[in-house]
């Protein structure tokens, strides 16, 4: 019985969302508000149990799960107070007089991530890529790879006008980019069609039992 109810709800909501293809209507509005509201609430719970509880609440209050301390050890539990305090400072934005304090955690957060990302990006996107593309020009494939890469790099060079040799190389680069995008487009469209097939299969098989 429960399966029938949930399948029916799923089918009604699926059709409500698809009704948007015709135009905006009350059924779509209902489905939209339902999914936005439920997902916002769901992620609130996810955020708490995946981030706040293991990283702040459990270490500070020495909560244990199955006899094992969660998160930081008993000697370093106080470290959890730092991100906890920074997180609380974000809420100072609700108090205009001290709202400026809320910029500190944002600055630490954004700056920290930008700094931490620099080294791995330099390794993965620069050094490794150069090494992988330092190919001998002994085959047509290698010539295309190296030529395409140099052309694409030229396209993303902003300090000079794309004229003369630079213009030709940038043109080669954009051609390679578009060929790549075209291939990616076709590949992704195929995967989206499979998603559509999944929904149609749900409606015709699980709900209506026609196939």
């Amino acid at each position, binding site marked *: 019985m429960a399966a029938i109810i949930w399948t029916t709800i799923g089918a009604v909501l699926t059709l409500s969302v698809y009704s948007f293809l015709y135009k905006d209507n009350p059924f779509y509005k209902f489905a939209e508000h339902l999914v936005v509201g439920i997902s916002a609430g769901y992620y609130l719970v996810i955020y708490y149990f995946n981030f706040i509880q293991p990283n702040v609440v459990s270490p500070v209050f020495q909560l244990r799960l199955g006899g094992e301390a969660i998160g930081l050890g008993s000697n370093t539990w106080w470290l959890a107070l730092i991100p906890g305090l920074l997180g609380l400072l974000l809420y100072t934005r609700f108090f205009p007089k001290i709202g400026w304090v809320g910029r500190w955690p944002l600055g630490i957060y954004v700056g920290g991530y930008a700094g931490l990302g620099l080294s791995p990006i330099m390794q993965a996107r620069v*050094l490794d890529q*150069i090494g992988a593309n330092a190919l001998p020009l002994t085959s047509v494939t290698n010539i295309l790879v190296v030529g395409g890469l140099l052309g694409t790099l030229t396209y993303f060079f902003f300090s000079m006008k794309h004229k003369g040799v630079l213009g030709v190389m940038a043109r080669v680069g954009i051609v390679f980019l578009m060929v790549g995008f075209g291939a990616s487009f076709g590949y992704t469209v195929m995967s989206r069609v499979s998603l559509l097939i999944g929904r149609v299969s749900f409606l015709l098989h699980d709900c209506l039992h026609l196939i």
Partner: protein
Amino acid sequence: MLGDRGRSGGIGPMAGFVALSVAVAALFLCPVAVFAQEETETVALETLLPIAPPTGLMAVDTPNDRGSSIDVTWELSADDDNDGIVAGYEVFRSAHPETGFVFVGRVPHGETEYRDSGIDNSEPTYYRVAALDTDESLFFSGTFGPVEAFSQWFNRSRLNVMVAVIIFVVSIVYFVTAAKSGKELFIRRLAGLDEMDNAVGRATEMGKPILFISGLSSVSDVATIAAINILGEVAKKTAEYNTKLIVPCADPIVMAVEQEVVKEAYAKAGRPDAYNEDDVFYLTRSQFAYVAGVNGIMVRQRPATILYMGMFYAESLVLAETGSSIGAIQIAGTDAVTQLPFFITSCDYTLIGEELYAASAYLSREPILLGGLKGQDMFKLIAAAVLVVGVIAATLTATGVIESNFVLPLLATG
């Protein structure tokens, strides 16, 4: 008849032939049988005899790591010559040299090293390695230790990364300093960004809002940071033109940052009173719920201009198609390679990859951002030069002119 003859004691011609055949066969087969018996005994003896244990046991802290790991090495057992007697090696660890050894891992025969992970730093540890025979019997080496795991401050295998980062930072600092000192820095024209003013102006003329979507990623993503920078410039223009700017966010931290950025932009434009905090709001983190919400905003508020800047996933085409259906002018910018084709086909202008990063400098013309962009260009030039040298070296290596590609070790990281 034959039996009768036999019983009579005489040997008939047929019986004699059979007897002779058996004797000849015995003569030839006998050595084979003896050899087979000897081989069986040899194998049996070998399986009973102990195999030689591994020798030369060594254990050192794993270099260039953050601790908790020790590398154990040994020399192969003298019986490990691929005849199947040695099945593998088992590594044992203890906090004491004599007792308490526990199994930590096994490697197949022919292997001479094992990385023992997940141990406590600065704790004296002892190791033994045993050769394992086909009967699962163990033949232990001597004990090695004590050895301690500890973290290194510096990862030497990534020295080249540090050099590259230093070159990158120095080039940016140089150009930022030059820009601040008043030096004019040229940046080529970017069509999509030139159109940004027109897009804001169009919304103003039509009396409709501008919708800014900064993707689904968090501020840990470079594309999101670039999008936030662009949002600041767009917000300045909307503040000047008194045009409504709607910014639905998928991440609460991004929302907080974007509220601050828009608020500051309105203040810089001299219109702090025009800033409405409710126009920069959190929708949901769920991908397609976010899409449903944004699509609803598009069809109900009908923005004249929609800007997609940042990191996008499968939602890109759904959003851009809906935006296209309401007749909005759309400008997109992302470094998501798989989503760029969809934006290119459904938007009026698309910033491809690094053009997104350049956008904020291009729009604002602020010395710091311009200097950063020029510094990146300089680094790209250096990277292209290294690539050309690497390709030449690889070609010379492939044609036998030089022995090895000397560029590749400089680029390799641990």
